[in-house]
């Protein structure tokens, strides 16, 4: 049985599905799905590939979630999307501005999904996105106001990078923009910050316990004790049970720096990871350094980095790639993909060695994810 690969594309103006032939050579773009809706994240369930969950809203309307049970051919709106407990006023409660992130739950819990929101909130569905309940241990944590009180970010402070340990359904990590990384070992009842070793150049205290700005946190699927993090202040690795992150971005070329949004790991080799560097100097342009887009690969867990830019524009190209907008497939050799804020999808079918543009002129891309269809 072969697996046909599709890219699920979330954009500021709707979703699209970009589907490949068997060899990943020819790609076909779908018609827009929910054209005009803001689609932050559209994710396929590896436990049952027919199931998709989409985080969406529009410019006018409040946030919601749609789900599909037919590979994205049709969608149904959640009858109870993520929402905080009702309250009389802002002093007593919170209102979800957008559902920013969706992640599947543990393999042993089919139908379980998690959603991260802005303002920071974590929600759980046990019926493939049909209804959602707050993870109160996180949303109502006694230290919530302290942890989340370091200031907002341009797109709104949000929960992202919801990672369930593949070896333990009760063990989870989440990232919070200008909040930090938080860990639970009891499926969300209790949480602790996990930010030691991370720089927070925007906070005077160099040893602050929380308030850091993770951009993307990944738990390695084959070696869950290994985490990688692309942060506002560098690239990091953490090997549990250690609790101090190591700044592996210090090994990046100085002229490139170690700032960006996404980080992607090789699914079977825990020493391999890719980042998409962006200019973090002066006013933080968040575009490709010197107008020369590039991917950097490490094969030794961050001890050294290799530039990969064959096929990418060689000059005057100012790509921005958001935290959900870079993914890998599971083919051999491994395929990598990123989507830009200019609406282009770029792909490599040789582990980043060379790149080609698959599609242009889409709306601003917020997210990419992989959908495999068994054939």
């Amino acid at each position: 049985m072969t697996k046909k690969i599709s890219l699920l594309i979330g954009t500021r103006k709707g979703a699209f599905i970009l589907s490949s032939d068997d060899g990943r050579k020819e790609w076909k773009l779908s018609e827009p799905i929910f054209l005009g809706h803001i689609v932050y994240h559209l994710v396929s369930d590896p436990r049952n590939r027919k199931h998709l969950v989409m985080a969406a809203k529009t410019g006018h309307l409040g946030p919601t979630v749609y789900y599909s049970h037919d590979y994205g051919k049709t969608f149904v709106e959640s009858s109870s999307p993520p929402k905080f407990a009702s309250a009389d006023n802002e002093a007593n409660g919170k209102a979800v501005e957008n559902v920013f992130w969706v992640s599947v739950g543990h393999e042993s819990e089919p139908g379980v999904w998690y959603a991260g929101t802005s303002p920071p909130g974590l929600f759980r569905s046990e019926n493939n996105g049909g209804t959602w309940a707050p993870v109160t241990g996180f949303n109502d944590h006694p230290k919530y106001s302290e942890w989340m009180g370091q200031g907002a970010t341009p797109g709104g402070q949000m929960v992202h990078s919801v990672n369930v340990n593949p070896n333990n359904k009760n063990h989870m990590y989440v990232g919070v923009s200008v909040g930090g990384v938080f860990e639970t070992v009891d499926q969300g009842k209790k949480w602790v910050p996990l930010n030691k070793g991370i720089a927070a150049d925007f906070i005077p205290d160099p040893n602050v316990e929380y308030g850091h700005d993770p951009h993307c946190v990944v738990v390695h699927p084959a070696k869950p004790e290994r985490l990688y993090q692309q942060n506002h202040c560098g690239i990091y690795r953490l090997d549990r049970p250690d609790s101090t992150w190591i700044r592996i971005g210090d090994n990046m070329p100085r002229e490139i720096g170690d700032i960006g949004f996404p980080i992607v790991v090789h699914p079977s080799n825990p020493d391999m990871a890719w980042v998409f560097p962006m200019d973090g100097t002066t006013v933080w342009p968040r575009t490709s350094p010197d107008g020369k887009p590039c991917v950097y690969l490490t094969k030794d867990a961050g001890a050294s980095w290799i530039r990969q830019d064959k096929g990418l524009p060689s000059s005057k190209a100012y790509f921005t790639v958001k935290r959900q907008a870079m993914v890998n497939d599971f083919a051999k050799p491994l395929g990598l993909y990123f989507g830009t804020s200019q609406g282009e999808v770029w792909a490599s079918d040789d582990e980043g060695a060379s790149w080609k543009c698959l599609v242009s002129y889409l709306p601003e891309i917020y997210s990419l994810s992989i959908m495999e269809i068994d054939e």
Partner: protein
Amino acid sequence: MLVKIPSPLRSYTKNQSEVQANGSTVTEILADLDKQYPGIRFRMIDELNAIRQHIKIYVDHTQIKDTDVQLNGQEVIYIICALSGG
């Protein structure tokens, strides 16, 4: 009572631009709308019972900020999406 529905919300009302709803306050009207068209209220009203930033609700020609406003049964409710595009 007649309720005017803007285009972004017509996916809930089977593309109808006008629907009927019952209630003696706008709060009750919205609750009845949600009963008829599940999910429509949360797209307009958040968890704090606040009208969302880019939604405006008028009773006849008067914009309301508080949905507890009393109605006499003869008004027209206008739900309007404020300018938020681009």
